[in-house]
């Protein structure tokens, strides 16, 4: 039995997902995808824009079910919403009509904690992400980076076994982005959930992950898997990217990805109809 069947492990076995788009056409988002994520492993998924990377996350979360094949989380086939999972989207999923504190305390509240206990727990996490002074602010009153930190606290407060991240930092400017990457790693070290981190940025993927999965242009399937054996804790993301091992990995992954990116680009400009769809 592999580690993927333990708490927090994820395994995809020849998973295909098709959608019917509003025009009634059948689109294949991902085709015959197979990979595993060991418990506590940080796995990055890179691929060309719109190739169906995000579909792997919604399938893991149980927001959607595969057309063929099976998705197993902690050894159990996903059927309905997966328990013990948190999701971070590209757009903030903070509720704009609730204060930062109320937003972060939602997780424990839904788990059945009393309001007071949930808020105490939320205050703990806000202290951890350095937002104690802003607990009564509304999300629109915070900067983009602060909103991301609040989102991370909201996602991690239930101490999920799995953290799913869909290009969570891609809307931030470059500097804020690398700061957020550092903070994410620090938070991740505390509880060590398994992570599936979708991005189109190879540098971000290598700096954060233990394993990088490269997907093909849509319909997406796994093209190659690279193990990142840089030591942990990694330290500042801004510095690690100049190390020779990092550069070598980056070169190898890019050579695998480039073909797919060009393929996807030609298709999007050449107008050849194909099963490209990313919900």
């Amino acid at each position, binding site marked *: 039995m592999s580690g993927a069947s333990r708490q927090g492990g994820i395994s995809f076995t020849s998973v295909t997902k098709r959608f019917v788009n509003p025009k009634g056409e059948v689109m294949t988002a991902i085709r015959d995808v197979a990979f595993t994520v060991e418990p506590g492993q940080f796995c990055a998924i890179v691929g060309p824009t719109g190739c169906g990377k995000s579909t792997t996350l919604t399938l893991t979360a149980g927001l959607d079910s595969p057309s063929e094949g099976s998705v197993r989380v902690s050894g159990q086939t996903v059927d309905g919403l997966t328990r013990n999972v948190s999701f971070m989207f590209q757009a903030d999923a903070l509720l704009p009509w609730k204060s930062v504190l109320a937003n972060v305390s939602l*997780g424990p509240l839904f788990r059945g904690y009393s309001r007071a206990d949930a808020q105490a727990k939320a205050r703990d996490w806000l202290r951890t992400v350095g937002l104690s002074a802003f607990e009564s602010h509304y999300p629109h009153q915070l900067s983009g980076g602060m909103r991301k930190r609040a989102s991370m606290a909201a996602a991690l407060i*239930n101490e999920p076994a799995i953290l799913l991240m869909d290009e969570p930092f891609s809307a931030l400017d470059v500097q804020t982005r690398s700061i957020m990457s550092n903070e994410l790693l620090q938070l991740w070290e505390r509880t060590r959930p398994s992570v599936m981190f979708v991005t189109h940025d190879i540098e971000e993927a290598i700096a954060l992950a233990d394993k990088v999965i490269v997907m093909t242009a849509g319909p997406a399937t796994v093209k190659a898997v690279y193990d990142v054996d840089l030591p942990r804790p990694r330290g500042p993301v801004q510095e690690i990217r100049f190390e020779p091992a990092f550069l070598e990995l980056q070169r190898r992954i890019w050579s695998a990805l480039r073909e797919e990116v060009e393929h996807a680009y030609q298709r999007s400009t050449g107008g050849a109809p194909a099963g490209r769809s990313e919900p």
Partner: protein
Amino acid sequence: MSENQPLPSPRPTPAAPSIAEINRARARRRRQAVLFGRVAVLVVVLGAWQLGTALKWIDPFFFGSPLGIVLRLAYWFTHGTAYGSFWFQIWTTIEEALLGFIVGVLSGVVVGVLLGEVPFLADVAGPYIKVVNALPRIVLGSIFVMWLGLGLASKVMLAAVLVFFVVFFNAFEGVRSVDRNLVANIRILGASRLQVVRHVIVPSAMSWIIASLHVALGFAIIGAIVGEFLGAQHGLGLVIATAQNTFDANGVFGAMLVIGLLALSAEALMAQVEKRLLAWRPAPAGEPAGRA
């Protein structure tokens, strides 16, 4: 060489007023000018009206006069009307409009959220709602007077129906336009369906609903007054109808003025409520100064 020289002190001489002060003074002057303009318009219009009737250029019998209106109102407030004190007529209308508003808003929100959340119901009910909405709903007032009599209930019903449709359509649209990401996220956090409605759907639809409340409040007052027109024992609508039947132009204008003041204060109250309920929203970039 000149570039390396220390710059002269940038501090302005104390005598010169700062830009902030100049701006403040300019804004103050403008506010005063606007206020003066408004008062001038009022004085000119009322003055011309009063003068016109005094000089018999316009017939005070049909058009009333400002002084006549004031005297008529003073008489009503001190001596009452044929059907009880004037305050009681005002209160009756307020009561009807308020009850109608509450009933209409609550039912509109409940039905709007329900249909927005359950597409099957929306598809089934859709055509009927369109048909009823296309009817001139004011005529329902006649039916309600027949059904419910001359008392409070028929006016409350008419006001509620007018309010319902405004609120319903906004609540429905509001629910339909909820950010699906927020719903997915909160479901993953472990929210039940009811918790999703309570924490995401309703608050998100709230800004739509609140936008409709301004219009709805106006409709509530219209519903109450038209209902009283169609048949009532008390209320400002009855006061107007009676004044009209006795060719009392001053009476019609006087009651109109009272209704206008009523609507304005309700509007001001509504603005306060809106500010409280939507405190979480970022201040809009270009908020128009005088909202209708």
